[in-house]
C-alpha cells in the first residue's frame, strides 16, 4: 500500500525513476553563489500562517466579558450574603443570572451546529479548556440560576442561600478558565500571554462585578463592591503592563489597541472615583460603576482584537518562532 507510479511499465532497473530526479544538477559546474543580494522571503505572499479564529467578536469577546461578570458577581453576592449585606447580595445574584443568560446565548449562537451543543457533554477532556469550561458552567450554572430565582421569587430562602454560596465558590473558575481557553491556541498574542492572562481576566471580572455592585446597591452596603472594583482594576492594569513588557515585539498589537487603553483608563478612573466620591454620592457611584463595566468590556474586546491581529500577520508567528529557534 505504498505509493508507486505505475504509468511506466518498462521496469528497466537502470533507468532513474521520477522520484530520483535531481533538479538543478545539470549545467556546467562553475561556481555560482547560491544567494546573491537577496530579498528576504519571510512569508508566503504576506499570507498569515494561521487560520483566523472563526469566533465572532460579539459572541466570544462578549462571552469573555459576561462570563467574568457572572462569575465575580456570584462571588461578591456570596460574600455579601455571609456578611449581612442582603441588598448587595441581591444585586450580585441578579447580575450573575442575567450575565449567565447572555453567556449561554453567545456560546450557543457561535456554534456552527447549535443543536449539537449537547455533544460537549459526551466527554471530559482536561486537554481542552472548552471541555473543562463546559463542565465548570454545568456545575456553576444551575446554582447561579437557583440563587437568582430564589431571590427574585422570594421562595426557598435556605436553598437560595446554599446556592448563593455554591455559585460564589464556583464563580472564580468561571471568570478565569476563559483565559486558559484563549491562551490554549496558536494565536501568538494570546498564547504567549498565558502567564498574565488569568490575572488580567480575574482583575477585569472583579472590576466589572464591583462596578455593577456600586451601580445598583445602596451606598451603605456597597463598601465591598467599591473595594473589589479598586483591587480588580489595579490587578488588571498590573497584569496588562507585565504582559506587554514580557511579550516584547509580540505586544505590538496590544500596545496599539485603543480599546485596551480605554479599558484601563475607564477601569482605573471608575475604581478611583468609586472609593472616593462614590462613597458619599449615589450619582457618583452610578457613574463610577458604569465606567468600570465599560472598562471591563473594552479590555475583553481589546484582548480579542489584538489576538486576531496577531494571528493575521505572519510576522508575529514567524519572527517569534525564529527568535525561539535561534
Amino acid at each position, binding site marked *: *500500500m*505504498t*505509493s*508507486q*507510479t505505475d504509468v511506466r511499465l518498462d521496469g528497466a532497473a537502470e533507468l532513474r525513476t*521520477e*522520484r530520483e530526479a*535531481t*533538479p*538543478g*544538477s545539470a*549545467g*556546467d*559546474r562553475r561556481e555560482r553563489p*547560491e544567494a*546573491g543580494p537577496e530579498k528576504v*522571503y*519571510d*512569508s*508566503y505572499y504576506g499570507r498569515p*500562517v*494561521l*487560520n*483566523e479564529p*472563526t469566533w465572532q467578536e460579539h459572541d466570544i469577546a462578549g462571552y469573555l466579558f459576561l462570563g467574568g461578570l457572572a462569575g*465575580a458577581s456570584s*462571588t*461578591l453576592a456570596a*460574600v455579601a450574603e*455571609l456578611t449581612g*449585606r442582603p441588598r448587595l447580595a441581591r444585586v450580585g445574584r441578579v447580575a450573575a443570572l442575567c450575565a449567565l443568560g447572555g453567556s449561554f446565548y453567545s456560546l450557543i449562537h*457561535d*456554534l*456552527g*451546529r447549535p443543536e*449539537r451543543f449537547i*455533544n*460537549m457533554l459526551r466527554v471530559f*477532556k482536561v*486537554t*481542552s479548556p472548552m471541555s473543562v469550561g463546559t463542565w465548570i458552567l454545568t456545575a456553576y450554572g444551575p446554582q447561579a440560576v437557583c440563587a437568582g430565582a430564589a431571590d427574585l421569587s422570594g421562595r426557598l430562602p435556605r436553598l437560595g442561600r446554599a446556592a448563593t454560596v455554591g455559585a460564589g465558590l464556583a464563580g*472564580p473558575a468561571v471568570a*478565569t478558565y476563559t*483565559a*486558559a481557553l484563549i*491562551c*490554549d491556541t496558536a494565536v501568538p498574542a494570546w498564547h504567549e500571554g*498565558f*502567564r498574565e492572562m*488569568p490575572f488580567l481576566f*480575574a482583575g477585569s471580572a472583579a472590576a466589572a462585578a464591583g462596578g455593577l455592585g456600586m451601580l445598583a446597591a445602596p451606598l451603605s452596603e456597597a463598601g*465591598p463592591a467599591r*473595594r*473589589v472594583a479598586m483591587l480588580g482594576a489595579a*490587578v488588571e492594569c498590573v497584569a496588562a503592563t507585565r504582559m506587554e513588557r514580557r511579550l516584547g515585539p509580540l505586544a505590538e498589537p496590544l500596545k496599539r489597541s485603543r480599546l485596551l487603553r480605554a479599558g484601563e483608563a475607564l477601569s482605573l478612573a471608575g475604581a478611583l472615583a468609586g472609593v472616593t466620591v462614590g462613597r458619599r454620592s449615589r450619582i457618583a457611584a452610578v457613574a463610577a460603576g458604569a465606567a468600570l463595566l465599560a472598562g471591563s468590556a473594552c479590555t475583553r474586546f481589546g484582548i480579542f482584537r489584538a489576538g486576531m491581529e496577531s494571528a493575521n500577520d*505572519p510576522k508575529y*508567528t*514567524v519572527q517569534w518562532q*525564529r527568535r525561539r*529557534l535561534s
Partner: protein
Amino acid sequence: MGRVGFFTDTSICIGCKACEVACKEWNAVPEDGLAFTGMSYDNTVSLGADTWRHVAFVEQRRPLGHQEPGVGDMDFRWLMASDVCKHCTEAACLDVCPTGSLFRTEFGTVVVQQDVCNGCGYCVPACPFGVIGKRESSGVAAKCTMCYDRLGDGQEPACAKTCPTDSIQFGDLDELRERAERRLGQVREAGTASARLYGHDPGDGVGGMGAFFLLLDEPEVYGLPPGPVVTTRDLPSMWRHAGVAAFALLAGVTAMALPIWRRRG
C-alpha cells in the same frame, strides 16, 4: 496497521495541482471561490475547510543547484510544494476538541467526525499550521483525512496516487523517514545545498509530523511556520496560572468584605 504518512518531496513537484484536483474529487470537497490572486500560479491560496491540498508557487531570482540561467545572469528558480494537514503526533486540534469529534485513527492519522463536531471552531486557531477550518455550508470543521476511507480499503490516498512525479509519497512513516534522509543526501550531493527536511524529527514541537517535507528554502517561504509547537505543551502551566488566579479572586473578594474595613466604610 502501523502509522502511515506522507513524504512530500518538493524538489520534484512540477506544480500540476493534480493532487488538489484528486483530493477535491475523491473527498467531494466543495468549491471555495475562483478568484485571481496574482500570487504566481496559485489561486488556491491556503489550506482550509474546503482546501485539503494546496500547491504553493514561489518564484525566486536565484539559481537552483548548478542550473544555468540561459539569459545572461538572470537567475531564476521555481519552488513548488503541495501542502497538507501534518497529522501531527501531538495534534493541537485533537487535544482541544471539546466533543471528541477529532480522533486518532488506527493508521495514526487525525480525522474529524462530521456527525459529532458541533462547530465550536476551537480546533481552527489551535492548529499551528493553519490547516483546519470550519465549513460554511455545514457549520462543522473539515480537513484532510488522509483518505481514511481509501486506507481502510488498502488503497493509498488520492493525492499520492495521482501525483505524476511521485513528489507525494505515501507509506509506512518510519520507512518514509529513512527514504527522506537518503533523498536529502542525494539532492544535496547534486548541488542544491539549500535542501532540508521539515517535520521528520520526532523531537520537534509537535512530536514529528505524519506528513513531512523536503523543502528547498526556509519553511516560512512556503507559508509554513519555522518552529511550530503544539499549544497544549504549555497547558499544564496555563491551568496552574488560571487556578492561582481563581483562588486569588476568591480570596480578594472575601478580603474586601471583612469587618476590618468597617470603620472606613
